[in-house]
């Protein structure tokens, strides 16, 4: 064993990190190499001396001075700020949810006027909040009515969707797609979400 390796292993040995086999090799080397033996002895002595330094207890009165130096009550922040600081992810998520919900509710409440959407509205007649597809006329695609009622006497070649309103179908009515009435906030949100994803997927 080279002395350089032996010196490194002495340190490992003093750390308690040298395996039994390696320790035996080191001992073997030191029995043949006086310089390394002397060096190890000095290191071990240093180690023992450093550990043997007497414990210095804190001077009397320090504890009282520490306690007296603490700021008095009133410094404690409200409990929730501590909670927020310890749970940043949950707090951010909760805040996000509150903002989303409030904007959703605002939209829900504001969005009260009648709107009619569809690719072909030429034959649609609007009276007050009533959307009429007159008898004998046809709408060539989907028809969506928001905040109003739909009265179909003619033909709709796509889906008919009514949000926050009701549908009246005459006996002459013919609707090729589905008829859907939505009047709950949750359904509405679901519908919005679906149409939004639809837009993402297929374009407007």
């Amino acid at each position, binding site marked *: 064993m080279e002395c350089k390796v032996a010196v490194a292993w002495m340190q490992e040995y003093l*750390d308690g990190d040298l395996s039994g086999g390696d320790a035996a090799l080191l001992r073997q080397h030191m029995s043949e190499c006086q310089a390394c033996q002397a060096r190890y002895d*000095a290191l071990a002595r240093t180690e023992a001396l450093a550990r*043997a330094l007497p414990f210095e207890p*804190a001077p009397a009165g320090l504890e009282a*001075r520490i306690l007296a130096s603490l700021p008095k009550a009133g410094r404690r922040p409200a409990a929730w700020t501590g909670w927020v600081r310890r749970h940043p992810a949950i707090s951010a998520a909760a805040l996000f949810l509150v903002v989303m919900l409030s904007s959703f509710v605002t939209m829900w409440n504001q969005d009260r006027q009648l709107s009619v959407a569809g690719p072909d509205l030429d034959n649609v007649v609007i009276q007050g909040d009533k959307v009429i597809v007159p008898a004998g006329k046809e709408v060539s695609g989907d028809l969506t009515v928001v905040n109003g009622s739909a009265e179909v006497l003619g033909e709709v070649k796509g889906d008919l969707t009514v949000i926050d309103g009701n549908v009246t179908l005459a006996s002459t009515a013919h609707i090729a797609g589905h008829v859907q009435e939505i009047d709950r906030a949750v359904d509405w949100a679901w519908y919005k979400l679906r149409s939004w994803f639809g837009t993402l997927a297929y374009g407007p």
Partner: protein
Amino acid sequence: MTLEAMDARLARLARKGDQRAFAELVSMYKDKLYHLAYRMIGNRQEAEDVVQDAFLRVFKNLDRYDENQKFSTWIYRIATNLCIDRLRKRRNVYSLDSESSEHEGLDGYAMLPSDERTPESELLLSETQKIVQEAMDTLPAKYKGVMVLRYMQDLSLQEISDVLGMPVTTVKTRVHRGREFLRKKLERKL
């Protein structure tokens, strides 16, 4: 209940504003921190200041104590950082590393007004212990923190790495160099 569990419980109570729980933590850790600070700084008055400052910081930052970590690791880190700061500031003032070769041992550290040990405590120290203590005092700050935590507080290499926020391999290297440094210092004097 283990010591760690007790620490965690007291820290939780103290965080909720329980002054008695905090006083309990002070009484449990004041000696350990004082010993740590005194060995690192080598001056009683400054060691006392550091301990007081450390507890103040602990008190103010209890909200930020991460319970996944041992309380002792956290409080040692705060105290060790304060000591290292002081040692750094001191070096800037006295430029301690310029060791004069003709006066062996009379470097800046020895010329500090640091060791006002009282005659009583002086008597209790053997000649050997005094030499060892002086050797510890001359350790560069980089190695001192590691050595004091290793020998005076009996922390494992892993615990030291947690306290100082450095990899275990770095801690190991510093322990080895610190040990060599002390060996050389002591070989000439003992």
